[in-house]
């Protein structure tokens, strides 16, 4: 429907229209309006170049050439220049001329309608008829005069504004203005409209009540441009439905305020603006947190807890709550995720925490900064590591957790596995869970070193201690895992690790372990 330009255009498109009334048109007829002194405030920015100057009986060039490229606002420039050469020759039938004369007759002039408005309306009515090819078929004798049409529009617009239908649709002010201007051109009952002038038809907010069928029923000779217009609308109504659901509260309304009182809530990914009745306000969320803490201690059911925490995070986000409570929620979830080795969730929380700390909200920023360093070591992300180093202040570098993480980093950079495992033994907070992630590959690297450097053998106990295995058995198991059966020998009661025979055995696994780090798809 033509008047869909009443709605704010979906992102990325211009609502194209041949019609002078829609804002931001490919034509620049709004400027034309200005020459008639129209008081429209819905004028698009007047930065377009000169409008084609129209005489009192304007010839409207056919709209079609414009709409080959509707979505590019830049084509604005070219059409207006091509309009001038493309003027059609128009034949004015006698009846039209009479109609015009009647409109201008003083006896018919209406004081409430300015001459300028009337002229504009007249021009429009005639050019529309011309475009539609109805010039000869319209009954100009019976046609209501422009001023009557205008009065009718105004009355209707006033009536409609009072209906609650409007507020339900919550249309922004500019669009209602636009609708008024579109009302204008509708006219009292132009014959070609077949009386289907209902506002409902014109508003395409109502995604269910597609205007298209109504339209198609109407005029048999729809111009190509109109068809394209509808196609475009349909495309956007369909494709953008998820973002343009009806009724859509305009973004400027602010965050949602929740009213739900239930403590627990399952997590569901959002695809539309949230409904307040299922969003929990902060005070309820605080209670939820306490409940979840207790439940976690008691039941240790990770999937349940994760689900609940995600929904809490969601509630906090849609209500734009960013305070110490938010930080607390994220921190707890991060720690739980770490404990269970869920790097994906951990990483999400970590990203949010970083932003929150940056805003200045208090929390355990040192602890989590240390985690970040360890995480980057795990993913071998040199750029990020570099950036983190750049960010650290001298004071932070003295903090225990961060110092530890930095020491881990430098130990690994130099291949000092001895120091690395000593540090692993003594990790503050929950960093050990993070280090668990890459202890395996570091052990492989250390083994390679040991195999090359120590000849002919070392006691297994050495391996256990250096590489910080829980026991000799674990160390042996590790070696066996890599087909090291032949390297273990029992000598006088102690097990010996034959480094001399190991050769390149551990090199392959070591390379493999270092080549790909699986971050479970969540940067």
């Amino acid at each position, binding site marked *: 429907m033509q008047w869909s330009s009443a709605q704010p255009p979906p992102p990325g498109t211009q609502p194209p229209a041949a019609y002078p009334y829609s804002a931001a048109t490919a034509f620049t007829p709004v*400027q034309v309006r200005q020459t008639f002194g129209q008081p429209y405030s819905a004028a698009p920015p007047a*930065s377009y*170049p*000169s*409008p084609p100057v129209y005489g009192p009986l304007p010839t409207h060039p056919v709209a079609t050439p414009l709409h080959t490229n509707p979505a590019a606002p*830049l084509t604005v*420039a*070219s059409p*207006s*220049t091509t309009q001038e050469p493309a003027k059609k020759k128009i034949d004015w039938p006698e009846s039209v001329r009479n109609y015009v004369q009647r409109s201008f007759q003083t006896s018919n002039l209406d004081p409430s309608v300015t001459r300028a408005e009337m002229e504009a309306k007249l021009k429009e009515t005639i050019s529309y008829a011309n475009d539609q090819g109805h010039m000869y078929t319209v009954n100009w004798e019976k046609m209501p005069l422009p001023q009557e049409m205008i009065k009718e529009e105004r009355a209707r617009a006033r009536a409609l504004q009072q209906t609650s239908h409007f507020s339900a649709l919550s249309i922004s002010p500019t669009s209602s203005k636009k609708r008024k201007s579109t009302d204008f051109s509708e006219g009292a009952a132009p014959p070609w409209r077949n009386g289907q002038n209902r506002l409902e038809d014109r508003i395409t907010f109502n995604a269910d009540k597609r205007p298209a069928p109504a339209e198609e029923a109407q005029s048999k000779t729809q111009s190509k441009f109109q068809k394209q217009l509808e196609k475009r609308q349909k495309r956007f109504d369909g494709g953008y439905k998820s*973002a343009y659901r009806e009724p859509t509260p305009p*973004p*400027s309304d602010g*965050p949602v305020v929740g009213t739900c009182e239930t403590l627990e809530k399952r997590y569901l*990914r*959002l*695809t*539309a*603006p949230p409904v307040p009745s299922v969003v929990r306000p902060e005070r309820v969320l605080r209670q939820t947190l306490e409940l979840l803490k207790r439940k976690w201690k008691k039941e240790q059911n990770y999937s349940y807890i994760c689900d609940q925490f*995600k929904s809490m*995070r*969601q509630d906090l*986000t*849609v209500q*734009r709550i*960013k305070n110490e409570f938010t930080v607390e929620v994220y921190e707890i979830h991060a720690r739980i995720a770490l404990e269970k080795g869920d790097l994906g969730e951990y990483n*999400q929380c970590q*990203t*949010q925490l*970083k*932003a929150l700390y*940056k*805003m200045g909200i208090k929390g355990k920023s040192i602890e989590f900064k240390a985690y970040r360093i360890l995480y980057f070591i795990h993913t071998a992300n*040199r*750029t990020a*590591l*570099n*950036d983190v*180093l*750049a960010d650290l202040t001298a004071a932070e570098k003295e903090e225990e957790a961060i110092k530890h993480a930095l020491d881990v980093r*430098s130990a690994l*950079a*130099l*291949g*000092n*596995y*001895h*120091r690395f495992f000593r540090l692993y033994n003594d990790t503050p907070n929950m960093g050990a869970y993070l280090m668990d992630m890459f202890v395996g590959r570091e052990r492989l690297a250390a083994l*390679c*070193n*040991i195999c*090359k*450097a*120590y*000849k002919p053998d*070392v006691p297994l106990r*050495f391996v256990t201690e*250096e590489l910080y295995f829980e026991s000799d058995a674990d160390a042996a198991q590790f070696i066996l895992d890599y087909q090291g059966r032949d390297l273990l020998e029992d000598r006088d009661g102690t097990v010996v690790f034959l480094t001399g025979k190991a050769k390149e055995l551990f090199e392959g696994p070591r390379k493999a372990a270092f080549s790909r780090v699986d971050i479970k798809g969540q940067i």
Partner: protein
Amino acid sequence: MDSLIRTFSSAQTNREGYQLAQTLSPDLPQQQLQAIWNSCVHHDAQNVIKRGIQNSTSGFERLPKDEVQGWSDVYLAYWKAIGELLPALNQAPQSSWTKVYDAWKELLSALYRGYIGQGFEAWSIPCLYVVAKNLRIFALKADEERNNNVAAGDTSGQIFQDDFDPESEQHQKLEDCARQLNRIFTLCLNDRAPLEESRKWGIYYIINLLFKTYFKLNSASLSKNILKTLSAYRGDMPPLSAFPKSQQVTFKYYEGVLCFLEENYFQAEEHLTQAWSLCHKDAMKNKELILTYLVPCHLLTTHTLPSQRLLEPYPRLQKLFLPLSKCIKRGELHAFDLALLNGEDEFVKRRIYLTLERGRDIALRNLLRKVFLAGGFEEPKVEGGPRVRRTRIPVAEFVAAISLGSKKALEQDEVECVMANMIYKNLMKGYIARERGFVVLSKSGAFPGTGV
């Protein structure tokens, strides 16, 4: 506007790409910009420009209608952009670099359309260079301005995710610029015209701009994509050596730095050395940049240090590298650590910290070598035979040395570990006999590469 059109016509007649590009530059003195802006009235600009262009070429040189339209679009967009640029330069309250950026983007789009649909010819691609280069500059300015003005408040928009979207705003315009540049890249790449008339000649310029942008955006992965695309198309393209030297140097430099950042030191060294050799002898800043990465690279690949003579013309680099080099040569671990700490900020900024850290290995090796040398010689097995150094060295000696060198006491285990590393990295040849507490070094070449 007239002077622009005159230049345009002469450029068209002579097919001078660079001259044509001058007409689209925003780097004119403010008065000139003002004059251009004033020369057209708003609603008339379109026609004035179009007429001007139509009349600018005559006779055999007359431009086809498409091209006229295309060029008038371009100049119109340029004119509008100047309209935004002037208030921004004057820092008028209503101005904003964002608007300048957007207007300039329109110019780029107009130019792009010209090449795609309206038959602009390939010799005019310097226009693309100028416009693209300035797009990037405006993007940077717009971002800076936005970041300065941004309050801690929310940005608008519904949130359909579970969490906030941190830090996506910071380089918004630059990211957009990167996308635009990518379009131009594809434009140049996909030109099927024969080589003499192809847009492919613009490719390296655009690539270099893209690299600069991606580096600023800190995304090495996107840069890698470019390299991949380039190698996929390699068959069709003229070789790098056929392009202007300036483009070659820049390209090689970026390629080298990319490899460097991925710890691919051997390749990085290759690229950087090429860049180094192609570089103009007077281009001090460029050379300095290349060296900043070449020196650490060289350090790791060949374990050699920059000579005094090399670094002499570059006081900044001297300050960076010389203290470290000295400590490495002498094997002074503690001093090395200190020097690294001192220069840390600078190194981190240039992303060479992690690489230079590895220099410690070399310092260590030098230290151990000293121990070896200090151990003296063994009695020759055969009278009059060559003297061989003592190769069985008690670990305790190393322990002492390292503790002295790093000014803290290390346990034996740790020292052993350190030496295991040396051996593994081929900085030392031998093995550790743990039970006996000895390190047995190879008789011939215990410390490869040092002549011992």
